[in-house]
């Protein structure tokens, strides 16, 4: 499987510490993301944002989390045979994982290039397909990780610290 890692400058130690011993999360939320269901896609991200808002997370950080999550959720709906979104909230950060049922990303580096898109006509009619999904997740995350290959499932996960 091909793998892609991004860790924002200055966050290397915090990310490594968390990955070495991630402890127990305070709240876990799980949502299913059905294939091509653009009516419900985004609901999981809305609910995660509402929860974090109640927990008092700063509004700009909230928007970054919501945008990264929404882009990933739409990606699962638009490009995969469906998948699940799993959010784990810790006291100083959130870790959101999206795992789908394929068909996988043929070339992750290419998919990371702003403007590159394989979105179909239906997704484009709705305003998706700008080719900014994965770049927008990276831009808003403190760490991002992708594992995929053609013909296989895809894992996209990211970590964002609250301060």
């Amino acid at each position, binding site marked *: 499987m091909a793998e892609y890692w991004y860790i924002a400058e200055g966050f290397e130690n915090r990310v490594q510490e968390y990955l070495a011993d991630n402890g127990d999360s305070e709240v876990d939320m799980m949502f299913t993301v059905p294939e091509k269901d*653009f*009516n419900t*896609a*985004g*609901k999981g*991200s*809305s609910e995660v*944002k*509402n929860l974090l808002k109640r927990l008092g997370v700063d*509004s*700009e950080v909230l*928007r*970054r989390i*919501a*945008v990264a999550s*929404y*882009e990933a959720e*739409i990606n699962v709906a638009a490009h995969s045979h469906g998948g699940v979104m799993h959010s784990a909230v810790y006291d100083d950060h959130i870790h959101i994982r999206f795992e789908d049922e394929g068909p996988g990303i043929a070339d992750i580096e290419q998919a990371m290039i702003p403007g590159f898109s394989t979105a179909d006509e239906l997704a484009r009619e*709705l*305003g*998706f*397909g*700008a*080719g*900014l*999904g994965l770049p*927008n997740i990276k831009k*808003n995350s403190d760490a991002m990780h992708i594992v995929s290959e053609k013909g296989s499932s895809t894992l996209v996960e990211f970590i964002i610290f609250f301060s």
Partner: protein
Amino acid sequence: MTLRELVALLEGEVLFPEADLDREVPCAFASDMISDILMCTKEPTLLLTGLTNNQVIRLSDMIDLTGIVFVRGKRPLQDVIEMAAERGLPIITTKFTLYRCSGILFNAGLRSCKI
């Protein structure tokens, strides 16, 4: 600028009557592509767009829109209007094009949102 002033400048129609038109609009962004709109994470913004599907309203859950102006005479379906009303999100339709709306509002002092 308030939404009420903006509606007058764009000769717009407010799509549900309970919308709060005294709301201040500090800045705006215009696009027909969802990922472009999601670049607006720095501050609450007004959105000008030709997209009328329910995902445009869902965007307001993510990036805090102060209102949406549907351009080129576009009008969302009733269920989309209801989604906006549930969120207290003012929505307006105007016959003007995206370019014309942007020019009018920019000349009236409405700045571009930070991205």
